C-alpha cells in the first residue's frame, strides 16, 4: 500500500516537473500537418510533446489555448481577425497581421509568431465542366445562377461571419437551395459526385489539383488575407526555451508551394502524416538542433 502511494506521489511529481507541451490543430489535413511539424521539431530537441491534433474547428482550438489546455497551434490572421476577435474585414495583409498580434497580446495574453510564409484563403471551388457550362469564373458570376446552384461547405464556414453569410451578403447570393452542411473532409467528395455545385474549400487544399477543379476569383475581395502563423502561450516558451528556436525556424519557413505539396502528399497520395513530415524536416535539415 505504502509503495503504491509513494509511487503515485512520484508519478504526480514527475508529471508536474516535466509537463509535455500540448500541440493542437484543427480538423483538416493542412492543420494536422502543421501540428505534426511543431511536434517533431520539439521532439528532435528533446522536448516531450502531447499531440491533440484534429480538434473540431477554430473555436475549439482557440478556447483550449485560452484555457491552457493547448500550448500552441497554427492560426490564420484573417480567421483570428473576423471569427475570433469579431473585427470588420480588412484587406492589407500586414495591417491585419499587426492588428491581430496586438489584440491577442493585450486582450488575450497570447503571442503570435511571424507569418510562416503562406496565405490559406477560402476558395470557392467548382467542377470545370459546370463552371464553363454556366460561364462562371468569378464569385460574382454565381449571382446570375443563384436559383440553380447548390452550395456546400463545412459546418464552421456556414456559421462564421467571414463565411457563408458574409459572402451571401457581399455578393448578393441568396441561393434558392439551402447550403448543405457536412463534415469538412467530405466537401470535395460531394462536389465531385455532383451532389453540390460549389463548395468553400481552402486555397492550399491538395484535392483542388487532384480533381482538376477551378477556384473562383474573389473579385469583390470579400475574404481577408489568411496568413498562417503559430499562436502560443507565453508561459510555454518560459517553460521550454527550445520552443522559441522552433518558432524561429517556422517563421518564413513554409511557403505556399511547400504547403500545397505537403497537403497533396497526404490528401492525394494517401501517405501518413508523420512520415511525410519527417521526410520534409529531414530534407530541410531542421531536425538537427
Amino acid at each position: 500500500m505504502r509503495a503504491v502511494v509513494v509511487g503515485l506521489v512520484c508519478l504526480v511529481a514527475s508529471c508536474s516537473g516535466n509537463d509535455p507541451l500540448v500541440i493542437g490543430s484543427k480538423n483538416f489535413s493542412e492543420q494536422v500537418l502543421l501540428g505534426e511539424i511543431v511536434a517533431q521539431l520539439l521532439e528532435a530537441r528533446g522536448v516531450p510533446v502531447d499531440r491533440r491534433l484534429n480538434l473540431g474547428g477554430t473555436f475549439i482550438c482557440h478556447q483550449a489555448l485560452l484555457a491552457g489546455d493547448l500550448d500552441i497551434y497554427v492560426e490564420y490572421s484573417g480567421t483570428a481577425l473576423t471569427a475570433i476577435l469579431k473585427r470588420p474585414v480588412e484587406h492589407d495583409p500586414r495591417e491585419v497581421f499587426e492588428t491581430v498580434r496586438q489584440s491577442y497580446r493585450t486582450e488575450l495574453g497570447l503571442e503570435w509568431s511571424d507569418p510562416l510564409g503562406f496565405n490559406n484563403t477560402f476558395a470557392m471551388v467548382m467542377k470545370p465542366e459546370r463552371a464553363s457550362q454556366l460561364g462562371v469564373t468569378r464569385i460574382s458570376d454565381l449571382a446570375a445562377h443563384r436559383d440553380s446552384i447548390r452550395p456546400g461547405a463545412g459546418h464552421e464556414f456556414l456559421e462564421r461571419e467571414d463565411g457563408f453569410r458574409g459572402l451571401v451578403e457581399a455578393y448578393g447570393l441568396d441561393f434558392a437551395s439551402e447550403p448543405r452542411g457536412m463534415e469538412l473532409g467530405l466537401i470535395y467528395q460531394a462536389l465531385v459526385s455532383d451532389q453540390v455545385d460549389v463548395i468553400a474549400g481552402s486555397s492550399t487544399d491538395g484535392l483542388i489539383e487532384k480533381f482538376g477543379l477551378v477556384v473562383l476569383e474573389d473579385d469583390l475581395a470579400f475574404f481577408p488575407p489568411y496568413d498562417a502563423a503559430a499562436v502560443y502561450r507565453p508561459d510555454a516558451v518560459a517553460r521550454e526555451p527550445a520552443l522559441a528556436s522552433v518558432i524561429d525556424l517556422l517563421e518564413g519557413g513554409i511557403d505556399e508551394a511547400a504547403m500545397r505539396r505537403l497537403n497533396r502528399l497526404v490528401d492525394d497520395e494517401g501517405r501518413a502524416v508523420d512520415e511525410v513530415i519527417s521526410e520534409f524536416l529531414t530534407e530541410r535539415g531542421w531536425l538537427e538542433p
Partner: protein
Amino acid sequence: MDFLRFVLERHGEIGAKTWEHLQLVGLSTGIAVSVGVPVGILLTRRERLASPIIGFANVMQTVPSLALFGFLIPIPVIGGIGMKSAVIALVLYALLPILRNTFTGIRSVDPAVVEAGRGMGMTDMQRLRYIEVPLALPTILAGVRIATVVTVGLATIASAIGAGGLGDFIFRGITMVDHRLILAGALPSALLAISFDAVLGRIEKKLDVRA
C-alpha cells in the same frame, strides 16, 4: 434570455431544420416498420431463418453510427452524401427493435388461443389477422416506439454526411463553441423524441385488446 433572443432571431431556420428532421425520422421509421413487421411475422412461420436475420439486425446495431454513415458514402446508387444514405443507415438501426418485438410478440401469443382458432376452422391468414396480430399489437407497437425515439436522436448525427436536420445546429455549435446553437438543435430534438414517445404510448394503450 440570450438563448430566447437567439431563437427568435433564427426561428425560421429552426423550423426548417425541425421539418427536415421530421422527414428523416418519418421516412426511416416508416420504411423500417413496413419492412420489419412483415419480416418479423414471416420469421414466426419460418423459424429457421429467425436467428440469422435477427442476428444481422443485432450486428447492425453494434456498428457505431458515424462509421455506418461513413461506410455508405462511397457505395454507388444507395450511398452518397445527403438524405438517401442517412435514411438507409437509420432504417438499419430502427429494424432491430421492430423486428424483434414483432417476432417475440407473435410467438408469445398463448398457443391455446391459436389452437382454438384452428378448431373453429380458421385458415393461417385468418388466425394471424384475427388472433395473433391483435394480441401481439402492444408488443409490436412498443418496438416501433423504441425505434422512433432512438431514430430522433440518431438522425442528428446524419448531419455529418450532409443530410441536414437538427444535427446541423449541433455540429455548428460544437465547431463554434456556441451553446445557443447546440441547444437550438438539441432542445427541439429532445421535444420531438418526448412527443413521439407520448403519442405512440397512448396509441399503444388504446390498441391493447387485453385491457
